[in-house]
């Protein structure tokens, strides 16, 4: 019993590796039901008329790609399907490649034209400072887009001067940028803000949902899976639900098993 309590952590690692790998080999589907917070984002985008401007801030790096990239792709598909103009940007230097590839591939699938239907502004350092700058004038914050085109001349940005002219802003964050968007963006410049984040920081966002500073939230891979279900486009996120479920069950079993052993060995408080 004592040995089981002090088991080498590598044995636990092996269990986790098996729990992740097996469901990918033996595929099975699990029902994914969209929650209220994810539906809020979906409904908001659905309510926007064609030609609306949606700003998506891809504030994540390659480490968080597995959770946030599926969210990004699902959002982009939804926007392009509804003929909404997408303005992409990132406040994370590691995220430029991911953001650019997501926007470009989704845009191509729907026959959208760069500069007319979507644009990727690229990366700017300064986080809160960039938000304040964009709140006053987007063209001064991003004089050129990622490819060096002058933003003032871009048809997709016609009618947009600053953040106040955006019909919806969504921040996909692996860090604390959602809070920065609320404090330095939404509260100052008054636009609707939605969020997508890694599951780890999801609990941090609940106060903002309740106070309606965030209109909706996608949290973790499950949030991405729910969005894929809503737009009827099952992809990597839905596929990831099986291994995620198995690992969650495994960890829960580890916790229970560990406590059973703990009480059986008669540990004193």
């Amino acid at each position, binding site marked *: 019993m004592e040995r089981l309590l002090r088991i080498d*952590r590598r044995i636990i690692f092996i269990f986790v590796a098996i729990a992740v790998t097996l469901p990918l080999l033996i595929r099975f589907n699990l029902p994914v039901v969209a929650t209220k917070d994810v539906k809020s984002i979906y409904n908001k985008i659905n309510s926007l008329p064609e030609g609306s401007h949606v700003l998506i801030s891809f504030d994540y790096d390659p*480490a968080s790609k597995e959770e946030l990239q599926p969210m990004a792709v699902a959002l982009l598909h939804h926007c392009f399907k509804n003929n909404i103009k997408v303005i992409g940007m990132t406040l994370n230097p590691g995220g430029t490649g991911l953001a650019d590839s997501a926007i470009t591939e989704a845009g191509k699938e729907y026959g959208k034209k760069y500069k007319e239907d979507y644009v990727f502004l690229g990366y700017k350092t300064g986080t809160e400072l960039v938000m304040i700058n964009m709140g006053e004038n987007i063209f001064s914050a991003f004089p050129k887009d990622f490819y060096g085109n002058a933003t003032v001349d871009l048809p997709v940005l016609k009618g947009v*001067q600053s953040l106040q002219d955006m019909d919806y802003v969504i921040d996909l964050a*692996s860090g604390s940028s959602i809070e920065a968007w609320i404090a330095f963006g939404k509260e100052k410049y008054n636009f609707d803000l939605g969020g997508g984040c890694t599951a*780890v*920081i999801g609990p941090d966002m609940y106060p903002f949902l309740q106070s309606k500073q965030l209109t909706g939230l996608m949290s973790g891979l499950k949030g991405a899976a729910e969005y894929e279900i809503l737009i009827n486009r099952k992809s990597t996120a839905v596929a990831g639900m099986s291994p995620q479920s198995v690992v969650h069950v495994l960890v829960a079993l580890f916790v229970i098993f560990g406590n059973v052993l703990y009480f059986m060995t008669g540990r004193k408080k």
Partner: protein
Amino acid sequence: MYKIFFTFFLSILLLHNSSTFAVEGNKLIPPSDFQAFDTPDDDGKSISLRWPSSPTESAEVEYVVYASLRKDGPFITEALRINSNTMYEEGSDSNLHYVEIKPEKFFSKKSDVTGGRSDYFFKLVMMSNPENVEVKKIASAAPEGNWFNWKKLNNFIIMIAFSALVLLFIEHAKKNPNLYLRKISGLDAIDDALGRATEMGKPVLFVHGLNGMGSISTIAAVNILGKIAIRVAEYDTTLKVSNIDPIVLSVSQEVVKESYLEAGRPDAYVEDNVFMAASEQFPYVAAVSGIMIREKTAANFFMGYFYAESLILAETGASTGAIQIAATDSYTQLPFFITTCDYTLIGEELYAASAYLSREPLLLGSLRAQDVAKGIIITALVLGAVLATIGVGFISFIFKAS
């Protein structure tokens, strides 16, 4: 008799379809008034328009506002076009329309403005197919920037009150320097951890969080670093400080150098021991984990704001047998630190560290002010919740954000 009944019957039909008839029969009734005025509490780029509702509003009718730089027109620039049954003023029960427009959007900057103020003139037209009807009154206004946002008055008062409270308690602490502070085990354990490292002859590792110098938690962490560096210099132990931000690195180097100087050991300071491990989250984790495993650090201090890397760092440190003290205001990482570290400072305990370790009256005073402010907020929360439950929204109103 037959004619009377026929007329009566026809008039009922007409009344029932009055709005449609009004549109179909071109009997739009324009609003009785139309006002334009400078939007209050703004930067001087917006003009507000207000007009009462018309009984002939419907989804098929639109309001169009034309603008001009001269009172006598021409009114050809379309400033606004909305459905007539939208854009009602909040709290007006759909009796008033209210819109804010920015003249800059449809007029280029005027070069013939004298005195810096320019009036804009507006005409309101009610439109349906096929007829239009205008409001006779031409409204005019000049946008002007305001020097105070009155909607944020409650916020301003609270800010001034809290600042006054902090200064008051700092003065109070100067006269009564022995203010009570409850025990914070994590801070008391710092000496034990450093002593352990000295006995084992192993280095001490100080790990900064991921935020930059603009973050309060980083400032608090730097405070603690200064105190640790003094003790480490006195004990002649090796201190390694890992950073992810270049500005934090510069500050940390200065802080540690000054601490060694203060301890009378300037020769013992090694600049390379305060280094930039990496500039990204997970490379930082990899670098710091590598240091922990290779150098077998005896004491690890995790101070600042951490993200997902916290568990990797703390688990790796735990696997090497080091004593670990964490301090973070990152709510979601607290459970990971609590389970893997020997001591954890939660939230504001990190901010209180500088006051706790130095016992300086000025710092203690501000800490006391924080506690009093929290007490006031708790009271307001409880009272506000009770009052709001019985329908009295006074306290909610005081704390309303603009």
